[in-house]
């Protein structure tokens, strides 16, 4: 595995402990206190809490990989242009 996918997997692995701590406090504790009975309001909150952090990691990794690819393309194109 290489490229952006490897970056994303590595970043998700690195974020596992903070993500677990965040989910424990924002989802597990309220669920243990009976927040599931709050209905749609808690469901919306849970969905956002579940999706946003991993989505942010994927987005940042994607931007990073794109930036690196652009930089690589620019640096490899520069010597070729100089030779012409």
């Amino acid at each position, binding site marked *: 595995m290489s490229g952006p996918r490897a970056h994303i997997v590595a970043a998700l692995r690195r974020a596992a*402990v903070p*993500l677990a*701590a*965040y989910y424990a406090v924002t989802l597990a504790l309220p669920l243990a206190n009976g927040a599931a009975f709050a209905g749609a309001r808690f469901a919306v909150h849970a969905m956002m809490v579940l999706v*946003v*952090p991993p989505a*942010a990691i994927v987005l940042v990794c994607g931007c990073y990989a794109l930036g690196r690819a652009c930089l690589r393309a620019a640096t490899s194109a520069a010597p070729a242009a100089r030779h012409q």
Partner: protein
Amino acid sequence: MRTRIVTAGAPKAQLAVAAAAMLIALALKQHYSDARADDLLWVLTPTAQLAGAMTGSPFTLQPGEGYLSRERLFLIEKSCAGVNFMIAAFGMLVFALFHRARTAVSAGSVLAVSLIAGYMAAVVVNAVRIAMAMWLAAHPVALSISSAAVHRLEGILVYFCGLMLLYEAVQRLDRRAPHWSGR
């Protein structure tokens, strides 16, 4: 490669740390659930002062409500105290430093460092979140989602990034710092 010295009392010390951390987290959660805004001044006051310094808009105490910025009409109330973030940060730090608990003294140090760092991180990250929320309120963006959803999204991102940065920082410091002897 890192070496970890294991002493005979290590499992006992680690068990004590795990139990004490669980009790502290539950006690904090219980205190937060039962507390009124006035009972949370230990975290609201430094947060309001820091957020006030960041935004240049001072907050004044409103007994029973929290801290209010009259200039921006922004109230830092009980739900903005950041106690949940503090509990998450505390648990995460205990987990990250768990291997250092080998004696009674080092176990106590792990708990104390985690609690103090968790509290300080909660104040700083929460002040950043409030400053950003105030900025977003002053500069509304034309989006199809409501301002409440923007506020929630901002909270999730700031808190999660805060936890990530704190974890990275503690991992780096942990690699560099010598082990606590506890003697």
